[in-house]
């Protein structure tokens, strides 16, 4: 099983877990210890510091590493804090950044087309997948998921691949209808831990909707690895979830 981790934080966070890596060399060593082949990373300073600077510094950190790929954290364009969406997305792709991450809860905006429309139009046109991070930690944080916003965005941009990060227990009654309605919606698996949960999702919606991630080094990588390895999915399905689906999405990006 070739694992491509879609959800890794790389840098020096304000709160560091015991023995957590803070640089690409440390991440690479952890990947070897866990059997992970590749990682899509974002910078922790994007959460509450200078996002543009953190995105740029992430490039330097990942430039020296094999199989570690940057994802940029973006803001809605209304306030003009980042470049015009067209310029921004062009710049991302020129720098070989092939995934975007949105953090509406951490950055204080609503997941609505009125705020994000111009940016999402540009990301959709270039087929850049969007990791959507509502800052979920415990399963009880499900109240912070803006399902109406997810619905609105997925409906308005059906060609945009949206990956929901760290969904936990108690989301299924909202999640299932969303997956039914929106073929462009995907689930990252770092916290999707219900008994036979992955198996049930794959059986109903197809394994192509699941994207493997760990959330390290905030969260331990072992649980999502084991959850997938023992999921009961076929070898081909496991490979899709472990890395094939993310690779497909990234290869679909139009430079």
């Amino acid at each position: 099983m070739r694992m491509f981790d879609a959800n890794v934080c790389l840098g020096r966070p304000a709160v560091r877990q015991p023995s957590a890596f803070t640089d690409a060399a440390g991440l690479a060593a952890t990947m070897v210890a866990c059997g992970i082949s590749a990682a899509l990373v974002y910078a922790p300073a994007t959460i509450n510091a200078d996002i543009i600077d953190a995105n740029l510094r992430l490039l330097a950190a990942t430039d020296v590493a094999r199989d570690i790929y940057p994802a940029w954290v973006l803001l809605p364009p209304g306030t003009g804090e980042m470049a015009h969406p067209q310029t921004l997305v062009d710049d991302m792709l020129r720098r070989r950044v092939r995934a975007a991450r949105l953090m509406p809860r951490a950055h204080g905006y609503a997941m609505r087309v009125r705020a994000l429309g111009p940016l999402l139009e540009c990301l959709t046109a270039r087929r850049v997948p969007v990791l959507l991070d509502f800052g979920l930690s415990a399963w009880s944080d499900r109240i912070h998921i803006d399902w109406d916003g997810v619905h609105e965005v997925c409906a308005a941009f059906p060609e945009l691949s949206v990956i929901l990060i760290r969904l936990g227990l108690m989301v299924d009654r909202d999640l299932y209808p969303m997956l039914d309605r929106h073929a462009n919606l995907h689930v990252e698996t770092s916290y999707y831990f219900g008994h036979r949960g992955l198996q049930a999702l794959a059986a109903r919606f197809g394994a192509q909707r699941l994207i493997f991630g760990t959330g390290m080094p905030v969260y331990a990588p072992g649980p999502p690895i084991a959850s997938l390895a023992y999921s009961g999915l076929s070898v081909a399905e496991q490979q899709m979830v472990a890395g094939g689906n993310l690779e497909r999405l990234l290869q679909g990006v139009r430079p």
Partner: protein
Amino acid sequence: MSMPVYPDRFARSVLQGLPLSEVRVVDCHAHVGHYASLHIPETGMAEMIATADRLGIETLCLSALEAISADYRRGNDCVSRAMLDYPGRVRGYVVVNPHYPEEILPEIERCFAAAPFIGLKFHPAGHEYPSDGPAYEAALAYAHEHGLVVLSHNWGSADYLDRVSQRYPRAHFIQAHSAAAWRGIAPLDYLRVAKTRPNVFLDLALSMAWYGALERAVAEAGSEHLLFGTDAAFLDPAVAVGRIAFAQVPDEDKVKILGLNMLGIIGEPLKPV
């Protein structure tokens, strides 16, 4: 002593999707049955056993979700049936409900007469009752008298767990979800208690597995008082297996956590009352 190389044998088994082997694995904290607050795709005993086989889990020590959330008698009966249907694979906790204090001892005796339960389960949160409330005293005294395990969702405070474990030294106290909110950064009082009290154990069942927290727990308190628990069928038991399998702690510590410690607690067959 040579330095461990990771992935070790446990992690390699996981990566291949093979059951853990050459190690005894006992789940100290599982459940069976439905729970209306959330969708759990599979909660039946047969599916739980099939999952345990897939992972290499030898024994499930469990209570019924219905006993926590609704009718404790029906829930305890469900566990009795599971023990009889899967002898040796399933061991049960009798759930006591502190809102029916006069029924606690008769219920314990009824259950132990019906099937080989290993102990008691308290769920102060589910029953909305204080962890140190007086209705639990009779059950604790019974556990002490019979050398039973008492698994509580929450003992309230480490100081209370320290005191009650001294007051009933023949009972074995398990703090469930002991690292649930513990990131491994600040000191954890429960670890101090587990380290100093021979009859106090910490169950590792939780959904949130913070990076490096298990390694720090082992470094601070040793592995002798840590127990493998899954909180299945809320959670996929693979989650807890993966957390331990990929932890960067020595092989001998993993062997103790995965099963030896719990086997030491429940190893001797308990006589029905």
